[in-house]
């Protein structure tokens, strides 16, 4: 049995010998033990099968056609005979060309090379040679080229481009985010200049408090970011501790690394949120990285917590003001607004006047945000930013009782409609800078009284019932790439007279506020490039003999 096995193995190691006899070669014989249609050289076909054929698909079987003289098998059908029969002849084919191959001493010239059969000994070598996606006839030179290409790659991590993952020592800067489901996935890399904010759910347990890596501060700051020549360490900017009830306190010292540990059946110092701030230069090199943590406590009953992550990129020596478009406004981005500082009207102050801007939400152009209770007096403070291009309407219901005094009510309603700090200027372009005062459009305030001709006295007080902001914008620039530019903003307050109610009665008045964007673009004007001028000048010495 051992001998038979060895013999069988020995047989397997060699590929079958190539067939070179033209009488036995048949290219169209594809079916095993069956007759192929119209295949005159098929040995499985009988005379009856041949009588059914119409033509011979392979009329000539020959070796290399460039040989000077060789044997060829010719197959043809004799359709005159009844029944049709196949004619098989072996002839000497002669190539009359003077460049025909008379003889060859190179065995593989006329036949395909038999491939090496893999064995246990040569398998590794064959895998190295042919295992990749491509292989060439000369693998040695190929290897030399790839070695030479490796060193230049080290320099490419210095400069980042938009969207490129931020690389750290071990892999990428991770920003855990929900993938498919709401559970946190740690495999999301942070892209350069891509400001992201994600929230995801992490499954926790108090018992495994110190073994879950994602709850520890160290997990987020231990690897340093690869940038330029050196590596940038992630510093801890601030630590906010959140109690079980949700109250947050900012810790005064953020040098100490607080790791999660179990205390009184609570897991304290667990990471609830991380806020990365990366500072970069204008050429794309990262120079600083800081992380602000929110640490909290997990109680025994909680099986999962929600973690929130954010990353923001700021250029060095600039104020981080988010642009709403560059230069024209982009639909969906907030309308930028601001206030003028004191002393603006004086021309001398033009040079120094700059509008006080902040990325604070409360200084933007905002509109009343409807709440579920729909009660105006209870909903104070809920504002929504005005997004360019989105017409919005919101409102609330005001319940007026007899005991309400008019003047304080009017002031309260004005605050509800306009918000705490209603801006005075709106940026006309999405990227208007605070220094360019002419790029800012003043908000025109109008007052309309509902009852213009009324029988009531002037002194009776008016309460505002609606605020309508109309933003007129135009398309600016070229026809193929128009930019949105705000031209005019008008805030209209409509007031109505508050009629005194008899005691015990109450009335419900709807209060509305709306924003409308109107396109006042003028039709596009064709403009031409400068007309070509014909420059005809006679040569200098045209009138030579006379001048």
């Amino acid at each position, binding site marked *: 049995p051992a001998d038979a096995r060895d013999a069988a193995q020995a047989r397997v190691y060699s590929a079958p010998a190539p067939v070179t006899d033209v009488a036995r070669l048949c290219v169209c014989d594809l079916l095993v033990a069956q007759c192929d249609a119209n295949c005159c050289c098929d040995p499985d076909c009988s005379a009856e099968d041949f009588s059914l054929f119409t033509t011979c698909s392979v009329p000539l079987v020959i070796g290399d056609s460039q040989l000077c003289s060789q044997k060829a098998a010719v197959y043809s059908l004799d359709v005159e005979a009844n029944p049709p029969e196949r004619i098989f002849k072996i002839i000497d084919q002669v190539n009359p*060309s003077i*460049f025909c191959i*008379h003889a060859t*001493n*190179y065995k593989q*010239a006329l036949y395909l090379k038999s491939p090496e059969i893999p064995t246990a000994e040569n398998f590794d070598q064959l895998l190295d040679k042919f295992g990749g996606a491509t292989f060439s006839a000369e693998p040695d030179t190929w290897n030399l080229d790839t070695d030479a290409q490796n060193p230049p790659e080290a320099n490419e991590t210095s400069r980042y481009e938009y969207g490129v993952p931020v690389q750290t020592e071990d892999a990428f800067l991770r920003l855990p985010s929900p993938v498919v489901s709401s559970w946190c996935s740690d495999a999301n890399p942070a892209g350069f200049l891509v400001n992201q904010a994600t929230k995801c759910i992490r499954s926790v347990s108090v018992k495994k408090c110190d073994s879950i890596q994602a709850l520890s501060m160290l997990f987020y700051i231990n690897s340093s970011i690869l940038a330029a020549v050196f590596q940038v360490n992630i510093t801890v900017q601030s630590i906010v501790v959140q109690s079980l009830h949700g109250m947050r306190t900012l810790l005064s010292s953020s040098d100490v690394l607080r790791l999660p540990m179990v205390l009184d059946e609570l897991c304290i110092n667990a990471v609830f949120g991380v806020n990365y701030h990366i500072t970069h230069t204008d050429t794309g090199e990262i120079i600083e990285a800081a992380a602000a943590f929110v640490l909290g406590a997990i109680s025994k009953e909680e099986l999962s917590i929600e973690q929130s992550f954010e990353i923001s990129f700021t250029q060095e020596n600039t104020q981080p003001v988010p642009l709403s478009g560059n230069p024209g406004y982009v639909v969906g981005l907030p309308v930028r607004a601001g206030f003028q500082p004191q002393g603006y009207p004086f021309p001398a102050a033009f040079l120094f006047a700059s509008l006080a801007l902040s990325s604070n939400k409360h200084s933007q152009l905002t509109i009343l945000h409807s709440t579920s209770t729909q009660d105006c007096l209870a909903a104070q403070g809920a504002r929504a930013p005005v997004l360019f291009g989105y017409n919005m309407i919101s409102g609330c219901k005001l319940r007026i009782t007899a005991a309400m005094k008019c003047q304080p009510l009017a002031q309260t309603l004005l605050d509800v409609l306009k918000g705490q700090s209603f801006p005075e200027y709106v940026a006309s372009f999405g990227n208007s800078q605070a220094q360019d005062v002419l790029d800012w459009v003043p908000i025109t305030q109008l007052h309309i009284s509902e009852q213009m001709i009324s029988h009531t006295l002037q002194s009776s007080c008016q309460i505002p019932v609606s605020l309508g902001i109309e933003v007129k914008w135009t398309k600016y620039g070229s026809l193929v790439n128009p930019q949105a530019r705000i031209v005019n903003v008008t805030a209209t307050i409509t007031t109505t007279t508050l009629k005194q109610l008899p005691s015990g009665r109450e009335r419900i008045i709807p209060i509305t506020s709306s924003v409308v964007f109107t396109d006042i673009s003028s039709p596009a004007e064709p403009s031409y490039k400068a007309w070509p001028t014909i420059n005809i000048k006679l040569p200098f010495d045209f009138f030579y003999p006379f001048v």
Partner: protein
Amino acid sequence: NNSSQLSSLPLQILLYVNGIYYIFYFLTTLAMIIYKSQVFSYPDDFLAPDLAVLFLMAILEVPRLYLGFKGNLTEAEAPLGLSLGLTVGSVVLCVYLLLWQTYVLWADVLLNAVLLSAYGLESGLKVTAIAAFVS
């Protein structure tokens, strides 16, 4: 003056024609090797020996013809004998190109056969001339 002139005229004519024919032969064989390397599969380890033989033959041909001319004209048997020896080497190389080249085309066969016959005739005439000079 046949008795005083021992130089062989047929040998001289043959040597002269051989020189011209050899230039044609060398250029044609080189062109055909280039053609073969483009059209057929001609690996480097097979191309190198064929080219080496061809160039070696060209290097041998120059002194061989010069010595033949000189020996025949000065009626000296030493250069003619040396030329005969070099002819033997050229014959061997010519046989290689005729039989043992990687690809032997029909044109190769013709060219080499003509050259081989020229060498054979030359050798015969040289032997006759040496015999005439010696005696």
